[in-house]
């Protein structure tokens, strides 16, 4: 590889392909060894031996959606935190450490307030 930069991407891609190869190889091996005698009963969904009723995709709890929203907020926060964490040293050496530190304190506190609000609103209560 001519360039170190693309080398990173190619290495990761080769690892991902190796993962695909591992699963595909296993499935190929099973295709040779394992029996294949499908019938209607085998291909119904499993509901502990009782005849399945209704479809598989039924309604589910809205709560999971709210968890996903909460997660999104904090995950985006982390995207801001990582560059800050790495460059903290550089700013501290330039004498701006205190400023940069307290800016992040304010940011984190605002997000914590949001979390407290969500908890007080009853997001974590299951009834």
């Amino acid at each position, binding site marked *: *590889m001519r360039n170190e930069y693309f080398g990173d991407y190619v290495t990761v891609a080769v690892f991902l392909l190796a993962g695909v190869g591992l*699963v595909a190889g296993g499935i190929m091996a099973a295709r040779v060894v394992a029996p294949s005698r499908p019938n209607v009963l085998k291909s119904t969904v499993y509901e502990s031996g009782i005849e399945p009723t209704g479809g598989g995709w039924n309604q589910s709890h809205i709560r999971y959606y709210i968890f996903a929203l909460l997660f999104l907020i904090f995950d985006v926060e982390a995207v801001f935190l990582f560059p800050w964490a790495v460059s*903290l040293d550089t700013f501290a050496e330039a004498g701006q450490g205190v400023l940069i530190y307290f800016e992040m304190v304010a940011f984190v506190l605002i997000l914590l307030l949001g979390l407290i609000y969500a908890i007080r609103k009853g997001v974590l209560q299951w009834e």
Partner: protein
Amino acid sequence: MTSGFFWLDTFVKVAIALGFMLGLALPVIYAELKIMAHMQNRVGPYYAGGRWGWAQPIADGLKFVQKEDLVPADADAPVFKTAPYVVIMATIAIFVVIPLGPDLVARDLDLGAFYLLAISSIGTLGVLMAGWSSANKYSLMGGLRAAAQLIAYELPLLLAVLAVVVQAGTMSLTGIVEAQSAAITIGPISVSLPFILTGQIISFVIFVIAMVAELSRIPFDMPIAESELTMGYLTEYSSVRFSMFFLAEYASLIALSMVVATLFLGGYFVPLVPEAWLNLVGPMVVLGKAALIVFFVLWIRSTFPRLREDQLQNLAWRWLIPISLVNILVISFFAVAI
């Protein structure tokens, strides 16, 4: 690096990573069977392979290969079949950045710690795909529970790593190990201490709890709670596809244990060993430290009862996330002040 050697180099590294996944997953499965058995006053596997049932995990693997591969008629077949690929890919890609020695790393990415968190969270997608595409009520509930749990514990995991990044000042995992091998001088003594002893003990505890939850192991195994959901999102999987999820679980247990060893326990570094030898001794040291973590996770498994879904969410949102945020602020305060 010349272009001729790059490909050879990369393929050797991939082969080693695959060897790690398969070669370590089997002993860990065996260790789990045996250690749990003895903790519960049982004997565990005894007959397979002759002595102490050492061939039990191999026999299990062969059994999976010769089972019929079933896809439910109602299932969303393309998604159902893709899910194991996604999970395995997310697992094997973690091994890219784990350093086994000063020069023994597949690729020392500058964004190492960040890459690690990003790539391992792709596994969540695979789990959600498996749960959704099975067209089974157990699978759907298991998949949703798994997704809610994995994202909730993703955050403490991430924030614990962030605290380490603040202290090390770099996201490269090799850089983090080097930061831990730098000597600290206290009065007349000069020693190298791992991060767990230099202020990261809270991050360590949070990381290990979140790691057990990310692996969906007892006490955090609501997604596959057998007594209520059969096998959760894995209910409809059989044969090799099922064993791939199984393999991914154990391989990521090993990978994340090696990450704990790297981030908190000093990685490949051991005191008193000359630097030139670290490439030789390093892999053994990392594996030794990781083995301690694996044993600890197995110990937790046979000790604690399962958490209820709301208790599990409470632990993450009400305790671990606020504590880890405050932990970051405290650690970065010292990083700025000193």
